[in-house]
């Protein structure tokens, strides 16, 4: 069971992406994926999406992961997290970032987010070098 202060992660993305990512985390990390909630923008107006995100985010620490910062998910995430000390927004979500999150979500929110962004970026590589 998680510590009470552990952050919740909300993955907000287009189409089925959020459910797919959280499902992939579960396949790799098992029940640790319980710390993630998938949310899709499919068929939702901006107002409905903002309300749903706000409900899911709740009152504890939360990291909102979005696929595109420049999309409707990003706009909803910004609206949800602005002026909220316990909410942080991370754009360009990827699987390594989420795996890192589920095992470190008890860290202080600022430290956690810096770590996620750094490790998420570092996970994008070109193992065979330049073609």
């Amino acid at each position, binding site marked *: 069971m998680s510590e009470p202060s552990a952050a919740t992660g909300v993955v907000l993305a287009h189409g089925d992406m959020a459910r797919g990512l959280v499902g992939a985390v579960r396949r790799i990390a098992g029940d640790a994926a319980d710390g993630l909630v998938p949310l899709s923008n499919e068929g939702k*107006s901006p107002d*409905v999406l903002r309300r749903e995100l706000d409900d899911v985010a709740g009152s504890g620490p939360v990291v909102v992961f979005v696929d595109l*910062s*420049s*999309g*409707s998910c990003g*706009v909803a995430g*910004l609206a949800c997290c602005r002026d909220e000390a316990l909410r942080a927004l991370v754009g360009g979500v990827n699987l390594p970032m989420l795996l890192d999150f589920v095992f470190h979500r008890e860290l202080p929110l600022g430290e956690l987010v810096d770590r996620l962004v750094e490790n998420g970026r570092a996970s994008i590589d070109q193992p065979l070098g330049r073609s």
Partner: protein
Amino acid sequence: MPIVLHRIDERLIHGQVVIGWGHQLRPERYLVIDDELVGSEWEQDLYRLGAGDVGVEFLDVETARRRMPEWRESPERTILLTRNVATMRRLAEGRLLSGERVNLGGIHHGPGRSEVLTYLHLTDQDREDLRAMAEQGAIVTARDLPDAHGVGLDTLLRS
């Protein structure tokens, strides 16, 4: 001509517009016409973040109607957006959009709305506003993305 797209989309500046349409139309400016957003700087900031390097202006309907001729003469490729049908209808009054294509991009399900297309849900008032726009000379078509099949107003109103 420099207004390359007149679009009704309740999400305004988002992925389909910035990436889907933007890739094809290469806009140099977005004009968001909305009487409420003009007074909300924090919401304007949110939408600007989504637009990347492309400039965004927020204007009320009356200002937009006054400046429409200027925008048409401008060399800047412009996408003009409203987030509801009523606002575009107000823009179109006096045949201001006569001969122009108006794109219906996305209105989601909500109270009083019925599904016309998967991405388009209209109220009775929306339907009346669309008819009025067509009577004022606007050419109304629904199309979420540039490569998608366009659906004409007659078909939409039969749904």
